[in-house]
Each structure stands twice: as C-alpha cells, then as structure tokens.
C-alpha cells in the first residue's frame, strides 16, 4: 500500500513540472522569421523618401533571400486612369498590342490583359517551349476604393539561374496586370531591383545582418577609406544571407532622391525565401502617384 502522502507528492510534482514544461514549450514561435518593419511612402514622395524592410530570424537559417522587384504601370491609350492623379505615363505603343481595339469588361482577368501584349505573349510562348517556368502570384487588392484583381509573373529567378545574376539587371522580366470590376485595367512591367533605375535614384542603400553593415552610396561619392561601397556593386534587388543565426536581425534600408519615382507610381513586391521556400505571401507595396 502506497503512502497517501507519497502519492500526493508525486502527483503535485508531476503537475508542477508539466506546467513548467508547457510554459517553456509554448513560448517558442513556429515561424522561421518574423517581419519587423516594412515602411514605404504611400504616395510618390515630393521630398526624400526612405524605404525600410526588416526581419528577425526565429531559428538558424542556412540560406535566406530577400528579393525586391519594382513594377511601373505602362498605360495604353485605351486603358482608364485607375490610379487617380496619374499625370504622366509611359505609353505602350499600340504596335505592342495584339489587338489595339481590345476593351475589357467585368469578368475579364489580369491574364486576359497580359495575353494582349505582344512581347509578353511572344516571351511566354518561347519560354514555355523551353521548359522555363516563371513564378506567378495572384492577389486581390484594394486601391482607391476599387477591388483590383492582380497577377504578377516573374521570370527573373529562372533567367538569373540560367544566365547569371548580372544578366537580369535592368531587364524587363516581371509583368503584371490589374483589373477592376468595370474592366478598367493597368499593365505593369518591371525589374528585379529595389527601385527603378537605382544607380540614378538611390542616395544610400544599407544592408545589415546583426552587427555586419554594408553601406552603398553613389560611385562618385566613394573615397578610399570611407568604408562605403560604390552603388554599382550593390546587389540588384536580390539580397542573400547565409548561415543566419537565431535572433539575427536583417535590415535593408534605402533612401532616394525626391520626385524620381515615375509619375504613375510604383508597385514594389518583396519576397522572402527561407531555405528556398517562399515565406508567407509576397509583400506588395503600392506607391500611388501624388495628388494633383
């Protein structure tokens, strides 16, 4: 016969120890990273603008990649001004359209818009035949009280892999389309980079992994011993980190000259890959044109 006191001690001890363990176990995050900051101007800034993207690793990560892409609207003469105040726009020559009289209605999709762009269709057909697959993202976004079905198709990762990272710099390898409920649409085109024309636009780019910081400034401002790197040597939109330790903080900050974002605005997409897998969904930052 077990002494009741011993039994009581055993039960109370097990309960207390289990409670302690549950407290410790419950404290651990199941996500490999956590996004700390994603700051950007909501409209095309009139003064200097700063963009900040920051995350913290919740576990050791062998390979972490942050990929920035920037897309700008290219308006055709048939589309509607969906982004209020768009003063200027890059125009897509109507020769660049399969059907230059095409109009869109409710129920049409972003893919229908892309299917009317000659160079996109040409490239899509050729790459499909070669077994080259782009990364595709679909999202419904709210802009200016409109619901916009959005599709973004990115060929840059696969082309980079085949031809090298330098091969995609300034190359229009990312395509997008947005369409609202009434058929108003935008066709977008972009590059793998933090911002359009970074060499001309960026004043300073800082990349930090915990205590290691690298700062890039325009080439003509770099002098020996300044500890700064020329902007022309900065990664073009793809920041890769290896052997990231738990609790490492990674930050990408860049500031740019005023008024250098193209008039119609900008769509910036940020993706984080943890050991080759896309983390969560891409962050999409819309920078709308300034109100006129």
């Amino acid at each position, binding site marked *: 016969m077990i002494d009741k*006191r011993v039994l009581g*001690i*055993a039960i*109370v*001890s*097990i309960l*207390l*120890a*289990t409670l*302690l*363990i549950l407290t*410790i*176990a419950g404290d*651990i995050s199941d996500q490999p990273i956590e996004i700390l900051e994603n700051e950007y101007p909501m409209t095309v800034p009139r003064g200097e603008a700063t963009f900040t993207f920051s995350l913290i690793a919740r*576990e*050791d*990560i*062998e*390979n972490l990649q942050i990929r920035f892409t920037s897309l700008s609207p290219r308006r055709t003469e048939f589309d509607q001004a969906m982004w209020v105040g768009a003063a200027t726009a890059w125009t897509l020559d109507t*020769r*660049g359209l399969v059907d230059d009289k095409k109009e869109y209605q409710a129920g049409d999709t972003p893919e229908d818009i892309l299917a009317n762009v*000659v*160079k996109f269709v*040409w*490239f899509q057909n*050729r*790459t499909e*035949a*070669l*077994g*080259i697959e782009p990364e595709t993202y679909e999202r419904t976004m709210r802009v200016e009280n409109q619901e916009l079905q959005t599709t973004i198709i990115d*060929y840059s990762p*696969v*082309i980079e*892999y*085949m*031809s*090298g990272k*330098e*091969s*995609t*710099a*300034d*190359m*229009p*390898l990312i395509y997008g389309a947005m369409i609202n409920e009434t058929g108003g649409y935008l066709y977008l085109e972009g590059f793998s980079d933090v911002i359009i024309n970074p060499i001309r636009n960026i004043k300073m780019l800082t990349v930090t992994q915990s205590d290691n910081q690298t700062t890039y400034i325009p080439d003509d401002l770099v002098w020996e011993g300044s500890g700064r790197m020329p902007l022309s040597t900065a990664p073009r939109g793809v920041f890769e980190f290896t052997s990231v330790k738990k609790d490492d903080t990674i930050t990408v900050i860049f500031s740019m000259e005023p008024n250098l974002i193209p008039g119609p605005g900008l769509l910036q997409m940020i993706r984080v890959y*943890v*050991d*080759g*897998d896309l983390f969560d969904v891409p962050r999409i930052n819309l920078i709308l044109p300034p109100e006129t």
Partner: protein
Amino acid sequence: MRRIILSSLVVFLFACSIAQGEGDPEPNIIIFTAGDPVFAGMLADLITQDDRIDSEVEVVSNPEVIIMASLLPNTECIVIYSDHKDQVNGLYTSLSLYLQQGGGLVGMREVCYEPSALELAEEVFPVFANDSNRNPNSKGKRARTYIMENQHEVTSGLPETFDLLSMGTYISADDDGNYLPVPGDYEIVYRDEVSNSPLLVTHESEKGGRSVSMPGIWCVNNQRVDVYYGNLVAEDNFVRLFTNSVLWAAKGSTRYDTISTNLTAKLENSDQEKDELRRRAEEADKDRANQRLILLIIVWGTGIVVCVLVIWKLVLAPVETA
C-alpha cells in the same frame, strides 16, 4: 553476332544523342528589320537556304521583342537592319549585355550611326559613325565598292574587290566629312573605295560574343529603283557576305553553348538544389526538435525531483516534526 551488332548500334545511337546534347533547344537566329518584314523575310530565306547554318530563323517586327529575345537561352544570333532611330531606341542595355555574355550580332545601317543608336554604335557595333556619305562609287553608280582590308572568315569565297548597290554609308568623319578613325577593339575587314571608311567591322567581346557591323548596307523599299532591297539580296556577293557574317557571329559566339547546353538538366538541377536546401533545412529542424525534446525531458525530470524535494523537505518534514 546479331546481338553484338544490335548492342553496338544501341550504344552508338546513345553516344550520338549525348554528343548532340539531347534535349538541348534548337539554336535560334532572330531577324529584325523594323517596319519592313518583307526585307527581313528575304534575309531569313538567305540563311535558311545556306547549308552551313542549321539554326531556326525567326522574323520579328517589334523592337521590344528583340530585348526579350536577347534573354532567351537559345538565341544564337540577332540580325538588325534599321533605318530610323526610333527602331533602335532602348536596345543598348540588352544588346550590350547579350554581347558581353557571348552572343552573336549582325547590325546593318542605322545601328552603326551614333546620333541614332548612341552607345550601340560604339560598344556593340563599333563603327562610331557620326556622318553619312552618299557619294556614288568610282563608276558613278549608287553602290559601295568593298576593298578587302584583312582576310577573315567573313571574306570566304568573296573577291578582294566587289560592288554592292547602296544609297550610301555611315562613317566616322571629321568636320570636313573625311573619314576619321576612332581607336577601338575591332577589326576592319572591308573598306569603302571612295571614303576609305569601314564597310564591314568585326568585334569580339571578352566572353566570346561576336558582332559584325555593316554601315554600308543601305537600301529602300521601292521596286522601281536600283537600290531596292530585292535587288541587293539577288547579288551573289551580298548573299555570301551576309551569310558568312551570320555564320561567323552565330556559330563562333559562345553564349548558346554556354547557356543552352544541357538546359533541361540545368533547370532540373535548379529544382534539385532547392530540394536539397529544403531537405537540409528539414533535417536541421528535426535535429533542433530532437534536442529540444531531450532538453524538455531533462527539465521535466529535474522539475519533478525539485518538486519532490521541496514538498518533502519544506512541507512534510515540518508537519511530521510538529
């Protein structure tokens, strides 16, 4: 015996398929003549009729497609004939990158003219032309007389001197309109008899890219005049010069072999690398989970012992003593 022969045949066919790079995409030659696809079609026919060139040939009419073509792994050579600066606007970045990567290019007329093509006429088609010369040749004809400067692969089967009908040529000129050489990394293969300026220039990039510049190929879309492009493509010397140039640029450049060889395997390898990274990440996750489990068991066990001691010594012992 029959079995041995059959086995040998199978091995031979297998070896042949490996040697040819089975699964590699067909090399592609892109031809762009801006607003006039008929001329492009004629140039395409010259290439397809040449037994030495086994590549696919495609005519495109949109300059933006040229940019996209320069990114495809199987683009072996890009041929451009332009007669207006709007047709070559924005092509510099992609074509210079394509050449640096080892691509092949053949450029005619406006792409060699700096005021229209800007850096394209310096770095990709290094003719540095800033002026044009429309004087007739020494025989008083609207033609350029090609004088061989150097023996080259593109001169194969061609005489040392020959005429090709032409409206004129673009030249690098001084203030008086005389030819002014600009030093650079290029080779002059043919010169113009009248102006002494280059009529065919070859250039090779560090990674094996090749470009041929022909500033004197200048014809028009009008069947009633002598300088109609249909008359040009009917000239044997032009056919030889053009196809030699395409052959030298396409088959001698390195980009297609570098990027396209074993493309399918490379693409699969990309997926395998990702899978390997994921596998290692999963293994690391498992290791971490196991370590954590062991740690938790130890903490749990220690917790039980501590609780037993605390209750026994601090709670029960005083009660018993009392």
